[in-house]
């Protein structure tokens, strides 16, 4: 069922511009409460893992993991289990495979992205195979691609919360060594940080986050919560703690505003969530660019350094 369909069944929602009234109207509906709960849980988890994804420059791996939902959903349909299990199974397996074959020192950036791209192609091929073996048409193709914010069951909210608690707790334990290995792998390894293993574990956690996020935003819109809040926050500040907090805050604002607007609109929530996220990202980048221009304009050109001369 689409958002529009659900909304038409409701009592003709319209904005009164009385925020308290509008807010309580939204919360009167169980499906909206569940959507907000699930969206918030996902925003926190995707934001935190996405922050490390941006720092580690593993956006392509994140994208590939989101593609895993297709063979996941198709495989689940084939063996007759819930698509949710297919998502999680394939995303986690994808994280393991990418981590195993793309990591390691001595791998150049281009080699890594080639490995990740190959994994993606294979996964999509497998998905196609599963669909033809299944013989039918995958149900809810719209939901697979663009997600669903309505009709989220209590069980789904619980499952997402459980996954998020596990992923965030793991990140809390691994956070510092992961940060060290992400920015300075050589020194971290010399200090006994298992940089390579951490890279694999991180991709598995990222797989969990991607699977959870794609339940809400769909496969194609995962980056609205996984990438853009983190990229915006990192552009705003270089303080890691503040940056992480901002990432989560932006993610929550995006979900709440997106769902809130979608409730009163005939257009899908995925569009609003993505657009708001994008607007924040563009706004931040433009501000940073404008600020760096004014700063450069004020700066005195740097003196050329004396090379080969002892002053």
């Amino acid at each position, binding site marked *: 069922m689409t958002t529009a369909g659900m909304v038409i069944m409701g009592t003709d929602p319209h904005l009164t511009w009385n925020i308290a009234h509008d807010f309580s109207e939204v919360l009167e509906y169980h499906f909206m409460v569940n959507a907000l709960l699930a969206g918030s849980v996902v925003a926190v988890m995707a934001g935190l893992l996405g922050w490390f994804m941006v720092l580690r420059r593993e956006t392509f791996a994140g994208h590939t993991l989101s593609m895993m939902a297709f063979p996941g959903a198709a495989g689940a349909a084939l063996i007759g289990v819930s698509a949710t299990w297919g998502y999680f199974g394939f995303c986690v397996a994808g994280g393991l495979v990418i981590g195993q074959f793309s990591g390691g020192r001595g791998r150049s950036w281009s080699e890594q992205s080639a490995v990740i791209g190959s994994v993606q192609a294979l996964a999509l091929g497998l998905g196609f195979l599963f669909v033809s073996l299944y013989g039918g048409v995958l149900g809810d193709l719209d939901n697979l691609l663009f997600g669903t914010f309505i009709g989220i069951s209590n069980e789904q909210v619980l499952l997402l919360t459980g996954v998020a608690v596990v992923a965030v707790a793991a990140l809390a334990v691994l956070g510092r*060594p992961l940060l060290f290995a992400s920015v300075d792998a050589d020194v971290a390894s*010399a200090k006994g940080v298992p940089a390579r293993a951490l890279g694999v574990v991180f991709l598995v956690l990222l797989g969990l986050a991607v699977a959870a996020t794609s339940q809400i935003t769909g496969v194609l819109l995962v980056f609205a919560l996984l990438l853009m809040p983190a990229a915006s926050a990192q552009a705003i500040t270089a303080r*890691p703690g503040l940056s992480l907090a901002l990432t989560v805050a932006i993610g929550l604002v995006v979900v709440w505003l997106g769902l809130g607007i979608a409730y009163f609109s005939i257009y899908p929530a995925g569009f609003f969530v993505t657009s708001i996220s994008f607007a924040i990202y563009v706004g931040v980048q433009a501000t940073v660019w404008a600020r760096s221009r004014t700063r450069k304009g004020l700066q005195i050109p740097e003196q050329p350094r004396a090379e080969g001369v002892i002053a």
Partner: protein
Amino acid sequence: MAANPSSLANPSSIPAVKLRGAAVRLGGKTIWSGVDVAVRNSEFVAVLGANGSGKSTLLKMVLGALPLAAGEVSVLGGPAGRENAEIGYLPQRRSFDSGTRLRGSDVVRLGLDGDRWGLPLPFSSAGPGSRRGWARQRIEEVIELVGAREYADRPIGELSGGEQQRLLIAQALVRRPKLLLLDEPLDSLDLPNQAVVAALVHEICKGEGVAVLLVAHDVNPLLPYLDRVVYLAGGHAVAGTVEEVITGETLTGLYGLPVEVLKASDGRLVVVGQPEAPAHHHDRHSHDHGGHGDHGH
């Protein structure tokens, strides 16, 4: 002047680094062999030699990252790799991606507790005397020590190579290591900064009793400070004081080629005739990590 460290050292105290008859092979090729080196506590020792002579390889071996093909190694009284928590390591010429959005001080902090699992409690007291207060103070201290106060709070990716290098030295120092392994720390610096950093490393070495093994391309900025040097060439090494090692006679024996050492009036040394330029030209194209082999023969 500083007293001879060996006379101060407890005779039973173990040297920070000790190699005996050490050899390393990489990809089936012997980089060097028969290397004997000892670095005692609070000694400042430079590893010299041409590009590709295996200077960085020596540091990696001391860290336990490369296995020994022959001989013995002991680092801070244990096998290589065991006491790495007590070692401050600065790898060769790292530069951070310009998009790395972390402050310089955060990178220094990683050297202090980046290898600890779990998060620092964000709401614990940050006052003096608390763990966080202590960490903050120590980070301030080392940043001050390397003279990076001005730019330590800027994103590391936006800093110049020299500024990044100073912060990385601070990172290597922050945990008060017993041994510092510095791989070409002067490389990305201009000459005045080279002198400043060399003096700084010396000060740390003597002031805090840290043994320093520093890989350098040019010995001159280090001349006033070095206790001893290790000179790698032709797959072998000679260790001793600057006066013993950097002489025409010793280097001629090591390279197997006539080599002359000239001394400028300001004390700077110029090594003439070492097969560096053509050899390293040739080496760069054929094999990256290879030694010089026996060029003379």
